[in-house]
């Protein structure tokens, strides 16, 4: 008799896995994209912070 299981696969939803899941790209490439986006976001935040006079 074949054994019936409950749904068990929960797709990982961290930013890297999300990219892999949605676009089917390789994990190494997704890690690079996320790293670059995080660096760009950090740079943009730094730019927006006004300097003290």
């Amino acid at each position, binding site marked *: 008799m*074949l054994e019936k299981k409950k*749904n*068990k696969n929960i*797709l990982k939803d961290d930013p890297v896995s999300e990219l892999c899941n949605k676009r089917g790209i390789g*994990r*190494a490439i*997704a890690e*690079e*994209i996320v*790293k670059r986006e995080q660096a760009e976001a950090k740079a943009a935040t730094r730019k927006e912070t006004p300097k003290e006079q």
Partner: protein
Amino acid sequence: MGHRPFAIKSHADSQGAAVIVPGVTTTNIAVNATLLNELTGAAVRPRHTAIAAIKPLFTGSSFALKTILDIVGTTGLGIDSSVNPGWAYYLALLDDFGDPTAGSVHREYLVKKGVWIPRRLTCAHQGNAVLEWEVYTLQKASNLPIVVSDVAALPTVTIADSKWTLGSIDIGGVVLSDYTNVTIDFGLEVIPDSTQSDVYDKRIGVKNNVPIITIEGHDIKWWAASPIPLNGAALAHANSNVYFRKRTQDGEHYVTDITAEHLKFTMAGIGTIDTVGSDTNSVATTGLRIQAVEDASGNSPLIVDTASAIT
């Protein structure tokens, strides 16, 4: 004097660092030249011949499933090389005793622009899973689609060889038993393209991405109300997966299930029974086929986790 396959080095612009792929088995390069030699007048021999198109294509296979799938995923890698060198295949020049010759004397086939796609993953009972792949090549600026060098140094392979074989399979939440063969056809149809009578392709696009998973085995009861009735069954990532179990080189035979080194494919789509075959004096066989589709959440039809525990 002769050459032997050595390794692949992938270092496209989208990659942070170069990856040297171990476990290369077969690699072939087809130049795919189209020659025009129409006859004219009463001639039976061509009086003019010319090359209209050259479409070099690499095809190969490897046991390095994790290394390659981490780069190409299930939909392929676009190779560009404005910053990094690109994608290269190495053949080692052998000395008179059959060992790789010292120094930078080896053959390198460098692809500066193209696409590296997974074609098919197959695994039979007690065999090792093999990934077949293709690299379509494009012309990048004045570079030929493949730049050949005989003064290349061999890259250093640091990734250990690994092998995977059949693991557990759940379809529609049902644990399958007695399976003997699994084939994952990544279902990528790519269209290289050129214009203006250029000889080499300049761009490429994916026309279709229609993965098909085929499972064969001895349990003809897969055809049942569950998991797969005659009218088929809808499958989801949540309840349908195929594992490939990582082997060890000891008496344990396999990496423990709880260690996240196995490969896991999940899929959404429709499962149907493909065939049931029976013959005198042999065990009846059955085949199950899954046509994968993008699900309502926009997930890829086929998702691979290259560092999974078996649960």
